[in-house]
């Protein structure tokens, strides 16, 4: 399960400009939509959209790990939980401002990610899958642990106070949190893109494509693989922290293996290794369950499974495949005009 190779037809030099312009236009459209939508919808839809962005960050983080370095994780819920609890505990027990809890969560999760990444160095494929799966299973039990109960609230969890918009801005809490989350999402997206284009990113991708060759080229495998885990965990932690602030509640039951699976599915549906796909993947895991239960309450799980199968049959490479078709269409259209 470690090698993920998605073949994208190499674009000829001449096509690159068209391609760039198409993707730039697409990016601008998406950004405008993201900025404008909240102005026209109900508060609860804004809340849904905020959760959508939060999960998109978590999926992006997994993409960075899997698409960027070829490692695989079914345990992202653990880092998400860690981030959520760090933020919640800081806010409720230490009165730390919610904005400041984000870097704190990132830091805690980075350290946890690196610590987990070290033993994971020796594992790959199904073994890594099992190790991360184990991590996801263990996390809720750790959170319940009696020793930490005075901090974590044990099985009962912790209620988090929802922040108001700053500077007396005349917007609702929901809308403020949406734009705040959007800002964080964009920052993390930009950071991820830059990371993949940097020396570090290239080293990681070299590892993904061929470990032996990469190490022959002088890439420090342990360093970069551990780093990939750390960064991915840090971003996931930020997503968790934002999730806690938006939902106003953390409890062990919110961070079970189900969440890890959802994040994983989001990545597959969005397209492994394709960062913008995270938004599509996140939409799938946030909205498709609602569609499924509308079709049938008793069989909502089955309907969800069936929809998932339809998606992977039609586009086994996820939303990225759709984007490539779309791009091809757009190019044709531009050429003909």
């Amino acid at each position, binding site marked *: 399960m470690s090698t993920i190779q998605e073949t994208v037809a190499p674009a000829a030099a001449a096509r690159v400009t068209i391609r760039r312009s198409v993707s730039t236009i697409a990016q601008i459209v998406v950004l405008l939509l993201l900025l404008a939508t909240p102005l026209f919808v109900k508060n609860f839809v804004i809340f849904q959209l905020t959760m959508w962005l939060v999960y998109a960050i978590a999926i992006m983080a997994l993409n960075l790990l899997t698409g960027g370095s070829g490692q695989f994780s079914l345990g992202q819920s653990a880092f998400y939980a860690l981030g959520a609890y760090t933020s919640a505990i800081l806010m409720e027990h230490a009165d730390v401002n919610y904005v400041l809890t984000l870097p704190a969560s990132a830091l805690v999760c980075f350290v946890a990610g690196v610590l987990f990444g070290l033993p994971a160095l020796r594992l790959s494929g199904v073994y890594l899958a099992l190790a991360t799966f184990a991590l996801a299973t263990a996390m809720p039990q750790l959170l319940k642990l009696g020793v930490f109960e005075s901090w974590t609230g044990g099985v009962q969890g912790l209620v988090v106070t929802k922040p108001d918009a700053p500077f007396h801005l005349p917007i609702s809490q929901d809308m403020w949190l949406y734009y705040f989350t959007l800002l964080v999402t964009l920052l993390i997206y930009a950071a991820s893109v830059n990371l993949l284009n940097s020396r570090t990113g290239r080293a990681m991708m070299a590892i993904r494509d061929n470990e032996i060759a990469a190490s022959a080229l002088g890439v420090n495998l342990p360093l970069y693989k551990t780093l990939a885990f750390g960064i991915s965990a840090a971003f996931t932690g930020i997503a968790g922290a934002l999730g806690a602030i938006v939902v106003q*509640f953390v409890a062990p*039951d919110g961070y079970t293996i189900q969440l890890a699976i959802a994040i994983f599915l989001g990545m597959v549906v969005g397209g492994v290794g394709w960062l913008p796909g995270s938004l599509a993947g996140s939409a799938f895991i946030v909205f498709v369950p609602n569609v499924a239960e509308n079709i049938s309450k008793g069989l909502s799980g089955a309907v969800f499974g069936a929809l998932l199968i339809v998606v992977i049959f039609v586009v086994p490479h996820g939303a990225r495949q759709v984007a490539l078709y779309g791009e091809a269409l757009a190019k044709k259209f531009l050429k003909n005009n």
Partner: protein
Amino acid sequence: MNFRSTVSGLSAALAAVVIASGSAQAQKQYDTGATDTGIKIGNIMPYSGPASAYGVIGKIEAAYFAMINEQGGINGRKIEFISYDDGYSPPKAVEQARKLVESDEVLLVFSPLGTPSNSAIQKYMNAKKVPQLFVATGATKFGEAKTFPWTMGWQPPYQSEGKIYAKYLLANKPDAKVAIMYQNDDFGKDLLKGFHDGLGEKGSIIVAEDSYEVAEPSIDSHIVKLKASGADTFVSITTPKFAAQAIKKVAELGWKPTYFQSNVGASVGSVMKPAGFENGQDVMSASYAKDGADPQWDNDEGMKKFYAFLAKYAPDANRTDASVVYGYGEAQTVAQVLKQAGDTLTRENIMKQAANLKDFVPDTLLPGVKINTSPTDFYPIEQLQMIRFKGEKWEPFGPIISGEVRD
């Protein structure tokens, strides 16, 4: 399966009556979600995910409202029951609660299930001043009338149950050596706390405590360990599957303790029968409701109504499933609240009426158990009766005990 029962149009006859009675019209008061013709009730259930076993509660409630509607509704208003799936995930519960309140604009949210989900939405519901009525969990924290005036429980709080076992033990076997096995979640810890509180300074009679996780396939090793503690009394704070495993394992080990089984795991059909009737003899529990699988209620008036309801509106439902009985009782209680509210269908009045239930007896409660609430008492059912397993059924014994959380 569509759970949104459609709001049927106002019948001409009814319209005539309403127009004719001018004085009644003057008193009508509505909040969002209520009209002359209908009342919207929201609900959140784990239809999917790890707790999907409880999803049947939502189905039974929907069936109950279908029956009410067919019988003409409540005070002439049809119930529109909108039930959403949260997959037992707190963030999803928040999303669904907000959808119900802000998009579907329900009058109240009724019977949302599970401690984590209810904890997650409690603050929101109270801030929005929307009733979070008869939550489907026995966590003690959902009856704090002062702090959360918009949240009310229904079933006896787990802590009360724990206290009742403790008191029974102190009265009947004060020198017991107690071993406890509990589920490591809010339910298990709450009931355990009640038990500890009930023992008070006699806490030293507990010789061993062991928790288990729901993910564990088998709890054999816990039982082996607890037996080794030399205890002569066993308190099993467990849900059905583990309750059955424990009863069976204790019998297999040849251990014969005085046995207390928590109420959620005391169903005849889904616990005692699979565990083997011969293994469950003399196990004790405390109960407030009749058991759908127990033949002793076959001629009971209330249960006859219940069975008739099942036959007509939920023919697929498994009557031995305690959740089926539960959903019926809850739905009947909320129907009573709406009846009492009359034409003043404001959220405030809903809470007022919910806190004004006097000796109300749903069909499915044990004889003698009554629902009573007051503005300071947000625990509708607080009475339990000790029961003992004999042959193939539970036999109530002793008085109806009140297990108020605060005494």
